[in-house]
């Protein structure tokens, strides 16, 4: 498979979503609500960043820059993650809600990637799915705990879900390079084709936990896939690239 630009863009975008949400997850380290959860959530953060590295390394093997360069050297407007995953952490309700939505999306995405014509990508998807199963289970348990906990916890997860679904549309934005990737069989389903199953899956979870399904704004959180990001990504990237940029030629 030759390295058409859309191949590298696709792989980079897949990695960017994982890296950015992994970075946000890692910011909870030592400050999670319960000590046991701190340990569990740190594994989820590591998994996500590990997945990012897999996608990036595949891109590197096809002629792209190294995984470290991709994550630690690019300017914010070169990133192709959805705006949803770059948002600053707020309370635990938002984190659970956002991760629940992201993992639900990721489940659909990697499920379709199993049939990718780019076999190494299908292999990565299989590996990612093994870990994502645990993530989804973890998120569902937390959504349940908060929904059935106290009035306050219920209110907070509802607010978290509202904020999340207000910006979730960005995950499903479909650009030209997505269409090129689908034409070549790399991406069996366009992101926009995953929207209906996503809405259905989220609705089922919310019904199960007796929560209201907030509306998904069709215009919410768009722009990330074409490099239009919020200030949140600019500040986050400045942080995670801080030491690396002291000397990008050095070995750390």
């Amino acid at each position, binding site marked *: 498979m030759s390295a058409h630009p859309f191949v590298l863009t696709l792989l980079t975008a897949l990695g960017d979503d994982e890296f950015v949400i992994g970075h946000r997850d*890692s910011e909870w*380290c*030592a400050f999670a609500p*319960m000590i046991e959860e701190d*340990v569990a959530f*740190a594994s989820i953060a590591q998994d996500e960043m590990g997945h990012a590295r897999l996608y990036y390394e595949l891109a590197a093997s096809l002629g792209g820059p190294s995984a470290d360069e991709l994550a630690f050297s690019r300017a914010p407007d070169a990133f192709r993650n959805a705006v949803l995953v770059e948002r600053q952490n707020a309370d635990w309700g938002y984190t659970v809600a956002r991760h629940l939505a992201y993992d639900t999306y990721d489940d659909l995405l990697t499920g379709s990637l199993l049939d990718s014509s780019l076999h190494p990508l299908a292999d990565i998807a299989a590996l990612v799915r093994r870990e994502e199963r645990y993530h989804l289970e973890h998120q569902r348990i937390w959504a349940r705990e908060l929904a059935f906990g106290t009035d306050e916890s219920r209110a907070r997860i509802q607010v978290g879900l509202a904020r999340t679904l207000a910006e979730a549309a960005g995950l499903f934005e479909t650009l030209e390079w997505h269409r090129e990737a689908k034409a070549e069989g790399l991406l069996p389903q366009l992101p926009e084709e995953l929207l209906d199953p996503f809405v259905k899956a989220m609705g089922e979870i919310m019904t199960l936990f007796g929560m209201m399904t907030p509306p998904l704004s069709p215009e919410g959180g768009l722009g990330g896939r074409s490099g239009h990001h919020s200030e949140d990504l600019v500040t986050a990237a400045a942080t995670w690239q801080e*030491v*690396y940029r002291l*000397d990008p030629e050095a*070995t750390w």
Partner: protein
Amino acid sequence: MTEEQRLAAFEGRLARGERIEADDWMPETYRRQCLRLILTHANSELMGALPEREWVPRAPGFHRKLAVLAKVQDEIGHAQLIYRVAEDLARPLGMSRETMIEDLAAGRAKFHNVFSYPAPTWADVGIIAWLVDGAALVTQGALLKTSYGPYARILRRICAEEAIHLKHGEDIVLTLMGGTAGQRQMLQEALERWWEPILHFFGPPDEVSPNTEQMIRWGIRLKSNEAMRQEFLQHYAPKILEIGLVPPDPDLSYDEVSRTWHYTQPDWDVFWQVVKGDGPKTKERLALRRLSQEEQAWVRRAVLGKRDVA
């Protein structure tokens, strides 16, 4: 059985090298001394995570970012194991993990001096993971044979994980030392910052209090402060010197005759100041801990119910 008979039976068990378990009868003093030791350890793991977690968001490169995150995860994992042991031991005293962490955050509980110091550069991450964890491994290794069973058991796992942290830390140090002039300088400065706190870590030399004597007699702790500091120097001083790092002590040297390391005594007044809560970063980090406890209390209320939750 009279109290005297119970005590004699208890000390008989210790003399035979038997381990004491959570539900066994034990003198009140034994329980409290164990608890103080164990709680200081638990608190230290939790506070120790704070300087290092500052560098997780900024770690350079995938390998380091994942490794530092995994290390801090281990420290929190250790805190989980140790607080569980402390909670079970403290049950007759009416303490819970929630109240223990509240005490810590309110500045009422002790934790190791080293975690009150700043970690201003990436090189500090390497020094901490290699030498501070190295020091902790010496003190924890010395406790593997502690008479209190539940503590001894978790120490095995903790020491195994600390041994991995050492390798990670040493790797960072060696990479920086073999890097650019800027990296080497960063590392040298970090070593100079941490040298005294690390020597302090083992406690004042020949500190023989009635408490320490009792704890040694009961097998709660087994080695003296100086013995452990010497063990640390035996192992690490040569490794530091042989790569060209210069500890800020011109008198640091090995005496072949006494087979001990000579070093300039650190300022013990500073040690007592820090341990009493007046370290450079103590108040700030305790405030962070307090804030986190308060901000996340709603989650614990929802999930764990009313168990002394603030």
